[in-house]
């Protein structure tokens, strides 16, 4: 599980300065008095065949970002180019035509399946929308998909309420695969599942990626799972990406204080090491995205906050190939050995996990 060399591959998805602001109306005349900056100017690329993990606390805008990338929400600003097509400017009809290329797997397998449709109906819906298969062809395709995700063919005529959570998520995955997409946004696909099932689903996703050459944007708050599946990871905080790096680099040498804090919270599987782990506990709450801090978004909770952070927004700097950070510490001091201690520690954990994987 080495990071693919970014430059060697073609970016399939290019997100540039994507913003999604939900307006807030208020006051006597319901004027627009502000906006919730759910996604506030994020940019990243996803290369063909790779998995980009998006991590962050709940409410940081990662799900919204995922939906905005697929243009399920209309972005306020910015562009999303998938396979050379700028989907942020397409007409509704043209967008509809490009939908087969990009699909989504949802967080809650219960809520993402229409309780009044059969499994066959749910998996077949994309086929109805985008293909003109005959009844038999469609059925064949549905079975094929069910086989692919490991569902018993006999279940085709059942309704979702008859299935377990993991099976439902398989249905959702089968639906996403129906049109042979190239890019799938997995929006916390395992968050609502039992731990034992989670691994099955993630493994399924990996299998499918290999088999069909899929590109994933894998949104999760489960850092260990992301580490397992992702090739590169982007860390989001309050609508912004604070750090992007290949998975090993990020886990081994996080540069942003927030990333550090997040990683410190990952449970240590080895009890002997548990004691040596330094947990960074962040103080205070996440500020409201309607009213983010003036300077760096993280300045209110950052353990290493400086005066500069409170007034000036940090710009994103590429500190190494494929590793970008938005932090004044980096900008001022370069990558100087400030975080060295941590690096070593994480290297160790990485190795152990690597063995497990």
């Amino acid at each position, binding site marked *: 599980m080495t990071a693919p060399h970014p430059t060697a591959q073609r970016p399939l998805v290019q997100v540039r300065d994507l913003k999604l602001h939900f307006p807030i109306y208020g006051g*006597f005349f*319901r004027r627009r008095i502000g906006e919730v900056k759910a996604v506030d100017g994020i940019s990243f690329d996803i290369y063909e065949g790779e998995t980009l993990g998006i991590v962050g606390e709940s409410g940081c805008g990662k799900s919204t970002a995922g939906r905005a990338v697929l243009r399920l929400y209309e972005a306020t600003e910015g562009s999303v180019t998938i396979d050379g097509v700028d989907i942020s400017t397409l007409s509704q009809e043209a967008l509809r035509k490009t939908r087969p290329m990009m699909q989504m797997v949802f967080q809650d397998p219960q809520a993402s399946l229409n309780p009044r449709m059969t499994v066959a109906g749910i998996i077949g819906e994309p086929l109805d929308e985008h293909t003109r298969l005959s009844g038999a062809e469609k059925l064949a395709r549905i079975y094929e998909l069910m086989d692919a995700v490991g569902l018993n063919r006999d279940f085709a005529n059942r309704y979702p309420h008859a299935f377990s959570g993991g099976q439902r998520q398989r249905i959702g995955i089968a639906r996403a695969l129906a049109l042979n997409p190239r890019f799938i946004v997995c929006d916390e696909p395992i968050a609502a599942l039992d731990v034992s099932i989670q691994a099955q689903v993630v493994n399924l996703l990996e299998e499918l990626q290999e088999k069909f050459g899929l590109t994933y944007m894998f949104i999760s708050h489960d850092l260990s799972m992301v580490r397992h599946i992702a090739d590169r990871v982007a860390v989001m905080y309050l609508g912004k990406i604070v750090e992007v790096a290949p998975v090993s680099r990020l886990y081994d040498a996080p540069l942003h204080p927030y990333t550090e804090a997040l990683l410190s919270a990952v449970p240590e599987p080895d009890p002997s090491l548990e004691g040596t782990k330094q947990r960074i506990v962040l103080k205070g709450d996440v500020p409201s995205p309607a009213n983010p801090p003036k300077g760096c978004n993280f300045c209110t909770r950052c353990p290493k906050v400086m005066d500069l952070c409170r007034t000036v927004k940090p710009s994103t700097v590429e500190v190494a190939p494929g590793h970008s950070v938005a932090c004044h510490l980096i900008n001022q001091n370069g990558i100087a050995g400030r975080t060295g201690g941590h690096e070593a520690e994480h290297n160790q954990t990485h190795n152990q996990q690597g063995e497990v994987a």
Partner: protein
Amino acid sequence: MFTFTMRRLLLAIPTLLFIALVIFLLLELSPGDPMSDMPLTIPPEVRQQMRLALGLGEAWYIRFYKWLYLFSVVEPSHVLANMTGYDWLRVEGQRILSFQTRSPVADIIAQRLPQTLWVVGLSYLFGILVAVPIGIYSAYRQYSWFDQAGTFVSMVGFSLPTFFTGPLLILICSICVGWFPIISDTTLVVDSWANFLKQLRQMAMPVFVLTLYNAAQITRFMRASMLDNLTQDYVRTARAKGMTERIVVLVHVLRNSLIPVVTVIALGIPTIFTGAIITEQVFRVNGLGALLIGAIYGSDIPMVLTLSVVFAILIVLFNLIADILYAVLDPRIRYD
């Protein structure tokens, strides 16, 4: 909350204006004519003159504008003056005159209001008083014989049209048995015990019929709302804490169940004023409902328009009150 209320009130103004316009145009388009109940012996020229004297010669928008001015400025000033006793509040000039009676519409409405309030208001009150305990008990003992009977009676309550129960009651209670008068004496002043009894007797039948209907509806709401709450976790918790059943049901469950019921009751209040058209007709209670239908039959445009807009105002107002009540009673709901 305050801005929410103010905003809703302000928004209500264009809504009401539009309602007034729609009703006016409907009446304007409607084929009825205020002259239609005049005897045929009155020749056409004279009818035409009478029509002109009613102001029907002017273009519709002028008449609408005039009505609007009178309704929003002159009439409120008179109502205010009558209520406060300060005569200087009155805006001089013509008032909204009914075609049928040639007298100010507001005066007639004020005259009819007490009768409607007495009969319809009282039956609404009785309806609530009867319905709430029945609703509580049928929910508490769901599927018991009491619940089944209560359900049946309340179903019958709103399945029996008042135009059917009314005459039936008259036949039984007035004609055959002779308990109650069939014609309500609207001049009766309750100043003695005997007159009070008389008033009770003449109100008995219409109040009974309407109470049955109102109670039927409120019982259903009360029962459903109680049922919703009885299955909630907090009820189990309360019981587990060792509270007596009486306190669990009458304090915890009832308080929460009343929230939707109170708003339903508030929403129903405008119907007290609009009167029960059919019941009033059947029992000859000359209230606002009877006034409205009489005015519609007589194509009395100013009367119908004024009454309808007053009703519309009440409906809008009580909708708002219901919303506010909901927010006040239910801490989960907040308007900003």
